[in-house]
């Protein structure tokens, strides 16, 4: 029996947009994340997928309170993060770390790799000399001890991402948010970094929230998958269920749009071609947000917002006309 590490309930994040439109000044709200709820078990990986503007990155940042949620609660090991004071939150961040997408932007070019990796230890006032710890971390992520004295520009993208991972691991976190951690890497390098995440999880037992738009990577690494569309979770369930018998039409369309690297099956595939683009989160469609592109949409979809309902064991979807 696994235990819950993180519980997110009705998370909402609105961004205010100030538009200066000549003489008129208007305020508009971007509903980046609307009523998102999910849980992450200890030692498990939750994959968060969605297209641009789906709110997946905002969810990741709200969990760490890198941005303040508008409403909703985030509980970590049973503690409500929203109620914590700044200093308390800072102490708790030891247990929650993040790895960003761009390995070129996330490392300070003027700091040695060793200094970057030991910075979290210094910030959190971990006593003693950190040299041994840095070497241990470098070796853990597949780099060499003498890399500590070098600077980020001496490393390739894949190596830099490993440095970012070493830094995230420095404080032995229980949860790491991985925000598109392999999207900037070439495919041959990507595989090694994905393997590294798996190995580390097996050895150290932390949980991951793996945010990506690449569905095949998520399929490979995630235990549970949440599919987001325009700020909402439209489907959540075990990896195998979501991929093999998707319940929400959007999930089905998304899966069918991803080209697989096999010419024969790729050409034999029945494909659902969605029309148009994702609508603007400033003015999302009423009712079901996917209805403007959905081939199953009826009047009820515009009037009533569908709620997440259980369709199979552990699989939930928010649709009036689910596939399963």
């Amino acid at each position, binding site marked *: 029996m696994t235990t819950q590490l993180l519980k997110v309930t009705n998370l909402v994040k609105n961004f205010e947009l100030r538009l200066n439109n000549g003489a008129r000044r208007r305020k508009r709200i971007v509903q980046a994340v609307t009523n998102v709820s999910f849980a992450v078990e200890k030692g498990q990986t939750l994959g968060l997928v969605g297209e641009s503007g789906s709110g997946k990155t905002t969810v990741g940042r709200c969990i760490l309170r890198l941005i303040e949620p508008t409403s909703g609660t985030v509980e970590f090991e049973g503690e409500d993060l929203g109620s914590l004071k700044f200093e308390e939150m800072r102490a708790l961040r030891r247990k929650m770390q993040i790895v960003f997408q761009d390995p070129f932007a996330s490392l300070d070019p003027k700091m040695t790799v060793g200094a970057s990796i030991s910075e979290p230890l210094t910030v959190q006032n971990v006593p003693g000399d950190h040299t041994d710890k840095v070497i241990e971390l470098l070796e853990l992520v597949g780099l060499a001890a003498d890399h500590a004295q070098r600077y980020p520009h001496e490393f390739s993208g894949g190596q830099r991402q490993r440095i970012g991972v070493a830094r995230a691991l420095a404080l032995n976190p229980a949860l790491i948010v991985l925000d598109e951690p392999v999207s900037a890497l070439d495919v041959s390098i990507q*595989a*090694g970094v994905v*393997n590294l995440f798996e190995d580390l999880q097996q050895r150290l037992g932390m949980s991951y929230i793996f945010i990506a*738009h690449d569905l*095949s990577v998520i399929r490979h690494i995630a235990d549970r998958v949440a599919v987001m569309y325009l700020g909402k979770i439209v489907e959540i369930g075990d990896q195998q269920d979501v991929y093999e018998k998707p319940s929400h039409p959007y999930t089905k369309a*998304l899966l069918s749009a991803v080209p697989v690297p*096999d010419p024969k099956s790729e050409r034999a595939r029945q494909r659902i071609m*969605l029309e148009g*683009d994702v609508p603007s989160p400033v003015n999302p469609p009423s009712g079901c947000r996917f209805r403007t592109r959905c081939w199953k949409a009826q009047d009820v979809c515009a009037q009533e917002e569908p709620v997440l309902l259980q369709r199979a064991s552990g699989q939930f979807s928010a649709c009036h006309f689910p596939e399963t």
Partner: protein
Amino acid sequence: MMAEKVLQIRDLHVTFDTPLGPLEAVRGVDIEVEAGELLGVVGESGSGKSVSFLATMGLLPTRARVTGSAILAGEELIGASPKKMRDVRGRLLSMIFQDPLSALNPVHRIGDQISEMLRSHQDLTHRESGKRAIELLDIVGIPQPADRARQYPHEFSGGMRQRVVIAIAIANNPKVLIADEPTTALDVTVQAQILEVIERVQARFGTAVVLITHDLGVIARVADRVNVMYAGRNVEQGPINSVFDHPSHPYTRGLLASLPRAGKQRLKPITGFPPNMLQPPRGCAFHPRCEFAAEICRGDLPELRQVDDLQSACVRAKELPRIGIFV
């Protein structure tokens, strides 16, 4: 059956002078594009796939040294005068890029931008070119084309902008359309739409398409033939099914094996790193990362040779077991 070759690139070299010395980004590339085909060009960043075609288009900065040959419909493009290249570009050869917004002029209406392309190569009145522009918008799947033609680029979504760019590129019915990562910046559901537009254009006008991408899934979906590049060289080329079913080059195998597939089996990355192009490895540039590397691989630069139904630049291609990736 010999298909007509519309574009023949031979022994193309591109060198940039950098503060650290000359960098040869393209080191003797041969690519043939057959009439009406969809040729996929794959490779990772720095493999020279984009630079090869930018050189063919005459779009590299003057500090780039380009040698070799690129013959399009009987005309040599490498070393051609800027005036001649201006005439070739858009009429015989067009190119679209990853970011459609930067390819469009923000202060001109979409319809006018298509008309401009039409009138720069054809003797048309404004009225005729305007009408043709609307037809082109319709062909690339833009709803209400007559209204949309009067709008500006910022009023279009990313996917719609890429359609507009395709409309401009095909306006004069070029022989070859080069698409450099045309769907990389787009969401997958929109990517599917754009690939469909490209296929439709190819079928309707018989345009040969060169699709440059790092995404093997996209290649598998639309390409007739594939050309795999590594470290500024072709390493393998052949019909799509052959390259994916029984690749002859260890690099192609490595690429295909590194992709995540259904099921949880462990991924197989290619060991090591892409080479530093200031000092590429001797012989086959892939040998430091290759599990089959032998002494012979460190010798001369390997050329493409016929191996069954493929052309391979692996000197050991015939000795290596031709195992399928898809079992």
